[in-house]
């Protein structure tokens, strides 16, 4: 057990999940207190001791499946099963006595009655017969999963299940929606079971370390925004909510210590402790700062993934800041604040930016100079010493004049000017990037390529007070 556990913790660390020595020891102590034969108990015990951030749970689950999958997952099921299933007969489907229809009807039965044990058994059988696993291949199993699901014909399963659950009653769209969600959830269980089953076999075939290595994916916070896939983005979007809450809290945090006026009454009261000598002056709480944030987003083609992400971020922020204004630019700039009002759907906001906002002036290639100048001309007068201006973009100007002088004026008129650049620091100022010309005028410039960096930016957001007054 100790060996497996050490390997498991090592794997978590490899993935990027921070597991300290103390936590590792805790996990070992905790495992001694439980029945290790109970997989759920083991899973939850290790989760509680090793994982301290909900975002790391996916990485944990993957690693857990790999490292503890050889333990029988069903009562009464021998350990031999997994090994035996490993060398399947080349192209599958030919297993003697295997009846496709029979399996499908069993799966349907299990799904409609939510019989988890039976579902797992059926999933195991499906993998045996449909995945066509070949021993020794260094794969993560995604291909096997899709092959199994395709042969099971997921959409036919879905239709059949909807039919079973609905009966033949006439349903309103509302009821239909509920049933469909139900079906989707049940099918996702089937999918998870099959995936687990495949991993079990992979591990039996190639050993834990090898499989874990293939399955290893960066944590959500380490995915490069510029190269994120759609599923990565979906995951990041889920993580954005808490982040904007944090940013809101951070920006609104009032400065402690003596900033307000002397509070005479409290000072006198306190002076009782020192025999009437006002040794410990008390101050009124300063008025809480009401942050006003203006966000300028580059939405040009080269920034497609990133701008989607920043817009998502903006969208989430809009629910926290009453005084948030958003601007989008490519070679000229337009205000898009209204597209992101509270309760507005994100997708529709994005499509409105594409169709309604005037962000293209000449040719649709980034022109920071013109965008910033237009911004300053149209909106510059509305900047106040309370406004924090955040610009997100790669500063790639297509060799056009940067016209950075205008940024100095913006910085002077606002509380702080922050720039978030999604490119690695190394690439700044290469080619057509005019980063340093702009950086001169910014309060600070940050490389934000991953969610983690965005988080660090938010955490470290100590805004200078009245720096540019």
């Amino acid at each position: 057990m100790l060996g497996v556990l050490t390997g498991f913790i090592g794997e978590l660390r490899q993935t990027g999940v921070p597991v300290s020595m103390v936590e590792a020891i805790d996990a070992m102590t905790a495992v001694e207190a439980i029945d290790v034969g109970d997989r759920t108990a083991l899973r939850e015990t290790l989760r509680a001791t090793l994982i301290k951030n909900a975002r790391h749970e996916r990485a944990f689950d993957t690693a857990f499946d790999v490292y503890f999958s050889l333990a029988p997952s069903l009562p009464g099921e021998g350990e031999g099963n997994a090994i035996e299933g490993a060398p399947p007969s080349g192209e599958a489907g030919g297993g003697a006595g295997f009846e496709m229809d029979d399996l499908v009807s069993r799966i349907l039965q299990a799904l409609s009655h939510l019989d988890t044990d039976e579902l797992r058994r059926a999933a195991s059988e499906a993998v045996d017969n449909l995945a066509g696993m070949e021993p020794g291949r260094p794969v993560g199993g995604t291909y096997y999963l899709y092959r199994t699901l395709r042969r099971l014909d997921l959409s036919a399963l879905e239709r059949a299940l909807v039919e079973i659950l609905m009966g033949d009653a006439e349903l309103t769209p509302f009821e239909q929606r509920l049933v469909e969600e139900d079906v989707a959830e049940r099918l996702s269980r089937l999918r998870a079971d099959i995936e687990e089953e495949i991993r079990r076999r992979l591990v039996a075939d190639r050993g834990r370390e090898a499989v874990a290595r293939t399955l290893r994916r960066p944590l959500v916070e380490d995915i490069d925004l510029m190269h994120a896939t759609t599923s990565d983005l979906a995951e990041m979007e889920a993580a954005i909510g808490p982040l904007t809450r944090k940013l809101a809290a951070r920006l609104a945090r009032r400065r402690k210590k003596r900033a307000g006026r002397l509070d005479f009454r409290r000072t006198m009261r306190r002076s009782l402790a020192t025999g009437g000598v006002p040794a410990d002056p008390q101050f009124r709480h300063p008025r809480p700062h009401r942050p006003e944030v203006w966000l300028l987003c580059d939405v040009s083609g080269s920034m497609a993934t990133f701008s989607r992400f920043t817009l998502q971020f903006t969208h989430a922020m809009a629910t926290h800041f009453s005084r948030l204004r958003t601007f989008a630019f490519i070679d000229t700039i337009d205000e898009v604040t209204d597209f992101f009002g509270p309760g507005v759907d994100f997708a529709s906001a994005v499509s409105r930016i594409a169709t309604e906002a005037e962000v293209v002036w000449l040719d649709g290639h980034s022109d920071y100079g013109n965008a910033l100048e237009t911004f300053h001309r149209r909106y510059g007068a509305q900047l106040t010493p309370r406004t924090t201006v955040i610009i997100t973009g790669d500063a790639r100007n297509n060799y056009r004049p940067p016209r950075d002088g205008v940024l100095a004026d913006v910085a002077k008129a606002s509380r702080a000017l922050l720039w978030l650049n999604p490119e690695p620091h190394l690439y700044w100022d290469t080619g057509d990037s005019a980063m340093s010309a702009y950086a001169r005028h910014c309060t600070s410039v940050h490389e934000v390529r991953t969610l983690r960096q965005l988080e660090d930016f938010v955490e470290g957001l100590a805004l200078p007070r009245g720096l540019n007054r």
Partner: protein
Amino acid sequence: MDLGSPAAVASALRDVGYLPDQRISQVVFLAARLEKPVLVEGPAGVGKTELAKAVAAATDRRLIRLQCYEGLDEAKALYEWNYKKQLLRIQADAGSDWDSISQDIFSEEFLLTRPLLEAIRSPEPVVLLIDEVDRVEVETEALLLEILSDFQVSIPELGTIEATSHPFVFLTSNNTRELSEALKRRCLFLHIDYPAPDREKEILQARVPGLSEHLAEQVARVARSIRSLDLKKAPSVSETIDWARTLLTLSVEEVDEEVLADTLHVLLKYQGDIEKAAKELTSSPVE
């Protein structure tokens, strides 16, 4: 009360009206066995605070609660010297020498205990709930570390006060900021999410007497459906309970589009959310 196995924990919690899932009962069991604090995290209204209350009720312990807020300091969380009383003591005894007085005024008699110290000093075991720990500043978090790892408090004038009995400690967080590694390291971590429809149905039946099984199931499924939308504030468990009560009061037997549109404001508290949910779930938008 027996917390000897996860199953025993689950049934004890059930007896006091809290329906734990497997994860929750496992973590509570571990906390009891390893005598470690539990950090509970999750969206608002999934029963984080409720869990601590339920454990207190199930184990028959007193619940001591420290509500965290920005600006919380030692004097409010740990202890404070009762200086008025100290002052009186000095004045009442004007003639005596300084040494004896200074010895005297820094004794337990002049100590005002605040929740953390109270939990440590309590002769019978207690449940200590540190609510919304993410609201205090990072610096204040450090105050908690000594208590969480060693169950003791150091007071310069008195020395170290150790716990006479191990308190059951729960910390809750809404995740508005990242808690420090040092704090997390000392705790077991429990993430509670919105319950699955099956469990929510059970919760509803336990909390709303007279609710039919059919209606409970419908309510739970609608709640899941609404939570899957992208809303400003998803309905919490307590809000679905309120909704179920409303439906019961209105003697509704079947949730349909009309009922939903009429009572959506019990579940959702923002007009934007209500409009969105109405648009998504029913064919007719609300007025």
